[in-house]
């Protein structure tokens, strides 16, 4: 067998890894021809970039636990709670801006720590744990807000936090890029990232390689909640407190992350793939909205995107696995090991957490 080399797996530079970029370009060209004076403007560029910046931070928040093989469905609720806490502390309690932001982010960190505890120590499936957490967080939000939308703080510093422009872009775009660069560094350039992907790829094999799987799962959920805290603060400063904003972000975030996992490094949840997917989708939605003027397109688009992305990822995996099976049955001398090996592929390998399949 050593004579027959496995197929060179390095993906081609064509449609495979960069299909998102091609798609994005195609969308821009189509709408550029269709409605050039509405679509091909700096205004459109700036508004898409800014509108999606906070959604992008939430998508990155979802990305980290997914890379470690855990779902965080509580991101939306955490973002909402953060907008309320940071607003109430300033407007109702009279705190100044930075302490309020600090407390908000720490509160979200604690939410993540509790999520991590439930998943790692109590061993509750992350899907269920964070679904439950989302409901609890929603209740907390009602308690903190007293069931009413708080008035936005009036301080100058507070609105200056986000309502400034850099090179024509709102500064949140810059914040988002900073978060993305830090996450990219951590996930792809440090041991921490390796450990997280190893846990997501095959938790038991990672454990037997000396990786502290529990620690990194906990870390990923905590990071996720903390990022949501930051996203919530930025949103509150940009648009005011919201009781509902976060909930609407959950699906687009997952859609972007799953679609992103088919890009750049196929099969791996990655930062730049996620951003490409998010902005390609957002551009398409923006263009269609400019043409048709209807509002329900975003929901439709994101729903279709998440299903398509996961179906594509699963199909990819199946293809890779059937190739592996062929290898396995050739090497088997009929000791029964081959069949067991092949069956063992299912739960362990691949980046998609179990519930996706």
């Amino acid at each position, binding site marked *: *067998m*050593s*004579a*027959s*080399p*496995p*197929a*060179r*797996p*390095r993906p081609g530079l064509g449609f495979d890894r960069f299909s998102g970029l091609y798609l994005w370009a195609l969308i821009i060209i189509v709408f550029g021809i269709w409605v050039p004076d509405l679509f091909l403007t700096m205004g459109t560029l700036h508004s898409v970039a800014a509108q999606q910046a906070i959604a992008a931070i939430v998508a990155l928040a979802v990305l980290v636990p997914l890379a470690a093989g855990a779902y965080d469905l509580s991101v939306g609720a955490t973002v909402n709670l953060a907008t309320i806490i940071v607003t109430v502390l300033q407007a109702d309690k009279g705190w100044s801006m930075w302490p309020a932001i600090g407390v908000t982010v720490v509160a979200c960190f604690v939410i993540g720590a509790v999520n991590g505890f439930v998943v790692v120590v109590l061993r509750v499936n992350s899907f269920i744990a964070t679904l439950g957490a989302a409901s609890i967080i929603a209740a907390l939000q009602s308690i903190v807000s007293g069931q009413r939308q708080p008035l936005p703080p009036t301080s100058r510093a507070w609105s200056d936090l986000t309502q400034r422009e850099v090179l024509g872009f709102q500064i949140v775009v810059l914040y988002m890029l900073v978060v993305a660069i830090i996450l990219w*560094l951590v996930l792809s*350039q*440090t*041991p921490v990232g*390796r*450990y997280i*992907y*190893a846990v997501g*790829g*095959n938790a*038991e*094999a*990672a*454990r*037997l*390689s*000396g*990786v*502290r799987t529990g620690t990194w799962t906990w870390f990923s959920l905590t990071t996720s909640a903390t990022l949501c805290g930051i996203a919530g603060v930025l949103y509150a400063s940009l648009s005011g407190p919201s009781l509902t904003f976060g909930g609407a972000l959950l699906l687009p975030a997952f859609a972007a992350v799953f679609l992103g996992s088919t890009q750049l490094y196929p*099969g*791996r949840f990655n930062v730049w793939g996620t951003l490409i997917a998010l902005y390609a989708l957002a551009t398409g939605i923006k263009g269609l909205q400019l043409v048709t003027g209807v509002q329900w397109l975003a929901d439709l688009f994101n729903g279709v995107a998440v299903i398509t992305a996961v179906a594509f990822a699963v199909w990819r995996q199946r293809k*890779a696995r059937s*190739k*592996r099976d062929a*290898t*396995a*049955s*050739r*090497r*088997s*001398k*009929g*000791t*029964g*090991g*081959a*069949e*067991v*090996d*092949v069956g*063992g*592929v299912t*739960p*362990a*390998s*691949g*980046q998609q957490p179990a519930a996706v399949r």
Partner: protein
Amino acid sequence: MTPRELVERADGAGPLPPSLLTRGLSKSFGLTRALTGVDLRVDAGTVHALLGENGSGKSTLIKTLSGYHHPDPGGSVEVGGQPLQAGVASSAYDLGCRFVHQDLGLVDTCSVADNVALTTGFPTRCGAVRRKALRRRTEEALQRLGLALDPDTLVGGLAAAERTGVAVARALADADRTSVRLLVLDEPTATLPDTEVKQLLAVVRAVAASGVGVLYVTHHLDEVFEVADDVSVLRDGRKVVTTKARALTRRELVEHLVGGELEEVSAASDSLPTAHAAPVLRVQDLSAGPLVTANFTVRPGEVVGVAGLTGSGRETLLPAIFGAIPRSSGRVQIGDVILAPGRPDRAIAAGLTLLPADRVRLGGVMSMSARENLTLPALRALWRAPRLRRRLEVAQARTWFERLDVRPRGAVDAPLGSFSGGNQQKVLFGKWLRCAPRVLLLDEPTQGVDIGAKAEIHRQILSAVEAGAAAVVSSSDYDELVALCRRVMVLRDGRFVAELSNGALTVAEVAREALGSEDRAA
């Protein structure tokens, strides 16, 4: 009165056609011949035991019968006198072949009755399940096998032998029961406690008494003498003997199993010096799962082998030492460090490494690249804040590819899953060598690996040991143990029963001890 006589008399019109008749059955995988011209005859109403060491072709034979494998042209298979359509799964079923595999395929959270009905169909009225009829039908199916089980109990709550019994009942409980000709049981007792084996053997006898031919695949010699009418032995893909169980002694059976390879001396193990240094690995009173107790020490420069059948505790020994699975008691010490149970990270830090037997599930992260797998346990050496030193990592990976002869040579960034089994194993072996371990635990290091890779891995084990490490090799391949090890410890029923070294260390002797043949020469 044997069951066969019963059947012939009940039939009245002479003997039934044999339940299974194969002539010249062969199966090749590429250039490897897994089965060569096997002739096998299982008569109706008899239990025919099929024995063979690992890799002798038993599983291939069964998979060929079930239609999973397509046999080589030239051979023929008949079931109950009807020719089997080669490679067609439904053909085997239609002709009355039923299979019960080691993994029984029962749903633990469903009741016995529901499990049986999942394959045979639920009796319904207007779409609703007729619970009483289902219960009665299941009870009958169980009673025919002498099983007194409540059909409403959950399968998850049953003893192991009862579960196997339910699987057998399900295999036989068809709408038209008389159509079942052949029942194939694949190592049904491998994971059964001794106390429950008898119960299962009674079930097997009951099946044969009803006129079905039973092909009983096993590792355990005792069962052969207890339940089988006929015995066939496979070795290296060929059938070496078929005989009456009554006419056979235990010693003869062992000789058939291990063959003529009696006094094989290995150059490799003789050349290794046994160091006189203090032991680097001490295992005291270790017990975990089927492993009752293990006590041993290993010195630097030593390769120690562990042999034993499935269920002897061999599979749990190395994972329990390493902390991959929990241990119920005992102490493990590396040098001066006492290892905490269940903490592979600390074991690795102390200089202990484990190459697990199940490469895909436990060995590597198949979705990550070979390079990332290689460096996973000792990443810190590559870390210079804020980034990993990618270029150094690639260079190291290339060096290891070179050293272990991993093919294709340049593919350090390919996902591990895309390599062949042997090359995957080399990468995982390199991952541990890179940690410069004091003790290497190697669980089936060359399972499912081609000959070239196997030799390479053996060379690497020996060179690591020459450099001062110690190695413990657990393997079901006795040739491998004899070739690699200075001494081999044999596990049987959860305890070490023998330690073989020097002249006593032969493949045949290891096999005899593992099988536990009582009348072996003194």
